[in-house]
């Protein structure tokens, strides 16, 4: 019973993960500029990764693998904003113009 429940939850989370990843990839293709695409990439890195890792954690039961999977998750959570940020930062610095309006006093 519990096993079945865990299976179901993990399948759901896999489906969720796959959904976010595919959406993110789609976003990477069809969003207009690099700054917008960063959001799509961020979606893969956050929701996609976390759902799929959650699914795997559920599959593996509680063991060392759980810990390691969690480390992967944490690591990606930690590094994803950094790469996103420095990419965006550099794009700004090197003068890539964002699409859309610019509000307030930007740096």
């Amino acid at each position, binding site marked *: 019973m519990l096993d079945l429940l865990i299976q179901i939850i993990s399948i759901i989370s896999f489906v969720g993960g796959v959904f976010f990843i595919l959406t993110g990839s789609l976003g990477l293709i069809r969003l207009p500029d690099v700054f917008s695409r960063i959001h799509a990439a961020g979606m893969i890195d956050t929701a996609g990764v976390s759902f799929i890792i959650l699914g795997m954690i559920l599959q593996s039961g509680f063991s060392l693998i759980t810990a390691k999977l969690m480390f992967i998750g944490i690591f990606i959570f930690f590094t994803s904003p950094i790469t996103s940020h*420095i990419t965006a930062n550099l794009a700004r610095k090197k003068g890539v113009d964002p699409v859309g309006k610019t509000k307030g006093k930007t740096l």
Partner: protein
Amino acid sequence: MDNLILKVCTKVLFTPIILFGLYVQFHGDFGPGGGFQAGVIVAAAFILYAMVFSVEDCKVIMPPKLNFFLLALGAFIYGFVGIIGLILGDPYLSYDVLGSTKEAGQHIGILLVEFGVGLTVCNVMISLFYSFANFNFGKRNND
């Protein structure tokens, strides 16, 4: 790179990466990994640090002289483990005689040898990065 986020996060990540490298080093017996991979990972931490801060900063943690010494030491450890076997009456690189039983000997031998590999690889990679990053750093004449 003069980026606050990157700098702070690198500081945070530095030690876990090295520890992960060491974990790979010492768990090569049980899972994938070993001296070589560990060396690369540890070196990667140093390289990250050198890239985000500066090579000079990295040289504070790993001075080039020490780096070079360890580079030779690693391979030397490997070779020397073999020579111990030789002196104790077995062929070169035979670990059987290192421990009380053959199995223990093999364990000790493999551990030491992997350590030697890790040391060399790590320091070679750091040294490579030092060489490449700071080539042409000082004033030089034209070739």
